[in-house]
């Protein structure tokens, strides 16, 4: 049974290899079948394995399947070995399932692109790497997958390589995440030096024994790992790459930059929860970062013109919620939100992708409008996604997941009302910008005629995702609505249960508040962007709006702080001043040569004179000595 685990990442990898090597010789249809089929197959295996796993309850809560020793040197050992437990199962499920849908969608989306085979090769590689990431049983292998997805993200952002801007965006994404990765790898070194192993299981077991809570090394290693997570998950201060990453094809944005890869940071923190529990200060920092990010990104989303950029900022903001949850110790809430977010955000991206495709690559929402009638399927699914994003009460899955986070941010032992306040403000902004987007795009008058109706391959994934965005929430309901706790039960042995603070306010109060906030946001959006109130127009032109639009000018800040000095550094000393030293030596030798050459002037009497002078000097020296 356990050996099937290996197949999950192996199948897409194999398919990647085939497409990459033989892509030229396979017809498009073959590529599509291979690309989609492999992911479908691994998603089926995941489901089968998952069902088995849940029904059999293995010892230690995990299946481990080891293949061979990867590295074994100087006391360090790492295996190629996969570990399936409930956490990785959920991730695997989301990755393969959402991945399958997105692959399916891509067949139609990419059908006219010349890089069709290349696209599927990259996508398969991505799925495979992402699966390795979540299935890895040691941190090094995890890092392997971690970098692998980074590579795929780089490749896919720069997929349309002919536009230098895309290349720049890809580079930016890779470099910024790489900064985080570097911090992470240093963290790995520290963990290895401390525990002599990078096996997740044994690190988790040893850490509480060796380190007391708040031990400086625990804090440092937690900070370092957090650095990696921040980079990958586009959290403050490494969030700037994600909006630019929208340069890639929309399915890519959906799969990588919304559903899966960007949540790798969440996975890492959840996976290493023991370590973070040992470093409460870092955990608080995570919560604060999450809260700050969700606000900052929310405000930015509010002012964007580009449909995909809105979604990008929204993604940042939603991951901020997950971080907030992680920070307050609501582990399973974070994972739950991750799953739901994967559904509705993938849905939104796919919807947006279809719109953009059908509107002749038009990204600007202000040039859209009135698509409600023209593209009804997309409208409805998009609306559902939007509703789920803005956590419309009761009917949407987003409500249940977000509400849980909000409540726990207040009531958790590590929560505080400030965090809650940030969260609830964020929720308000979320529904505001979500419906701003919907109103701008689908209502009003029709500005651009769509090319044609979307095909079945596009709509089916949309519908499936939409239904999941609605019903997905019912597997985990708050106590007052009916105690269904399927999700957290699954995760219980793995992730520590949350400790609530003593004075708990009843949950329903928060539910009502957030419901009001959510609906209020929608209403405000209706006033501002459907009715076009004067305030919204004037605000749109204000400086503050521009400031938000530019993502709080983080890019400019980094440009001044880092990019320009580096460019300056590379501009000066291009020729390598050290070389000058050697050139100087050479010149000096040449100079001496010239001097001496002058003495060899061919004059006999000069020669005799030098000879005489020489002997006089020599004799003098000798006599002095």
């Amino acid at each position, binding site marked *: 049974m356990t050996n099937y685990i290996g197949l999950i990442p192996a199948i897409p990898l194999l398919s990647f290899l085939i497409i990459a090597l033989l892509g030229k010789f396979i017809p498009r249809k073959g590529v599509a079948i291979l690309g989609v089929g492999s992911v479908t197959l691994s998603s089926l295996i995941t489901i089968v394995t998952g069902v088995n796993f849940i029904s059999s309850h293995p010892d230690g809560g995990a299946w481990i399947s080891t293949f061979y020793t990867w590295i074994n040197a100087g006391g360090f050992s790492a295996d190629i070995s996969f570990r399936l437990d409930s956490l990785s199962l959920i991730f695997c499920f989301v990755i393969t399932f959402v991945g399958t849908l997105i692959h399916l969608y891509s067949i139609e989306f990419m059908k006219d692109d010349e890089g069709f085979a290349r696209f599927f090769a990259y996508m398969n590689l991505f799925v495979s790497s992402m699966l390795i990431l979540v299935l890895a049983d040691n941190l090094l292998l995890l890092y392997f997958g971690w970098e692998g997805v980074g590579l795929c993200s780089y490749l896919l952002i720069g997929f349309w390589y002919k536009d230098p801007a895309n290349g720049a965006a890809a580079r930016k994404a890779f470099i910024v995440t790489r900064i985080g990765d570097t911090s992470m790898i240093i963290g790995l070194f520290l963990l290895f030096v401390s525990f002599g192993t990078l096996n997740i299981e044994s690190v988790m077991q040893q850490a509480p024994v060796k380190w007391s809570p708040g031990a400086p090394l625990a804090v440092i290693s937690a900070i370092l790992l957090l650095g990696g997570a921040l980079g990958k998950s586009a959290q403050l201060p490494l969030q700037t790459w994600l909006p630019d990453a929208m340069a890639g094809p929309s399915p890519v944005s959906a799969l990588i930059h919304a559903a899966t890869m960007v949540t790798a940071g969440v996975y890492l923190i959840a996976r290493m929860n023991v370590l973070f529990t040992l470093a409460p200060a870092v955990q608080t920092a995570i919560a604060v970062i999450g809260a700050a990010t969700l606000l900052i990104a929310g405000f930015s989303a509010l002012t964007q013109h580009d449909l995909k950029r809105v979604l990008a900022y929204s993604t940042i903001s939603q991951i901020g919620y997950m971080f907030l949850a992680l920070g307050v110790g609501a582990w399973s809430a974070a994972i739950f939100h991750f799953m739901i977010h994967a559904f509705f955000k993938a849905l939104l991206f796919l919807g947006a992708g279809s719109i953009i495709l059908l509107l002749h690559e038009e990204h600007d929402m202000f040039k859209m409008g009135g698509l409600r009638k023209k593209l009804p399927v997309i409208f409805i699914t998009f609306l559902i996604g939007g509703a789920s994003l803005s956590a419309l009460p009761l009917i949407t899955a987003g409500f249940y997941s977000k509400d849980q986070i909000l409540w726990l941010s207040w009531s958790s032992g590590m929560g505080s009302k400030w965090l809650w306040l940030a969260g609830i403000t964020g929720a308000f902004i979320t529904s505001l910008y979500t419906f701003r987007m919907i109103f701008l795009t689908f209502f009003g008058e029709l500005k651009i005629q769509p090319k044609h109706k979307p095909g079945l391959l596009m709509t089916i994934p949309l519908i499936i995702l939409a239904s999941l965005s609605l019903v997905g929430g019912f597997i985990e309901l708050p106590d007052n609505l009916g105690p269904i706790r399927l999700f957290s039960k699954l995760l219980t042995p793995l992730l520590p249960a949350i400790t609530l603070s003593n004075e708990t306010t009843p949950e329903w109060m928060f539910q009502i508040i957030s419901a009001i906030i959510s609906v209020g946001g929608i209403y405000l959006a209706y006033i501002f962007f459907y009715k076009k109130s004067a305030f919204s127009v004037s605000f749109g032109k204000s400086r503050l709006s521009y400031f938000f639009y530019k993502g709080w000018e983080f890019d400019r800040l980094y440009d001044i702080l880092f990019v320009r000095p580096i460019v300056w550094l590379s501009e000066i000393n291009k020729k390598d001043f050290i070389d000058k030293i050697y050139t100087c030596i050479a010149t000096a030798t040449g100079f001496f040569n010239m001097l001496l050459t002058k003495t060899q002037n*061919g*004059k006999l009497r000069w020669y005799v004179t030098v000879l005489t002078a020489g002997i006089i000097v020599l004799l003098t020296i000798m006599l002095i000595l």
Partner: protein
Amino acid sequence: MVTISMEIQILFAGALFLTGLLGLLVRRNIIFMLLSIEIMLNSAALVFIIAGSHWMQADGQVMFIFILTVSAAEVSVGLALILQMYHHYRTLDADAINRLHDKKENEK
């Protein structure tokens, strides 16, 4: 007979040597230069005589004879060369014969 100390005698020979050397440096005519060299050689020979008489040995005189012979040979070769030189250069000016020298940078 007044005996003069060897040091004084050698100083005299040294003076002679210096005279020859100075002559060599000052003169431009190649024949005079050759003559100056002869003076230097002879002053050296003189030293041998002085030393031989000081140590009461015949070696000094033997050396003297050899020096005379050799310098004669040298001068004969020298004169032959000077003849050829005059033949080629039409001058006896030592400074005029400097075709062989290092080239300057800019002459390349």
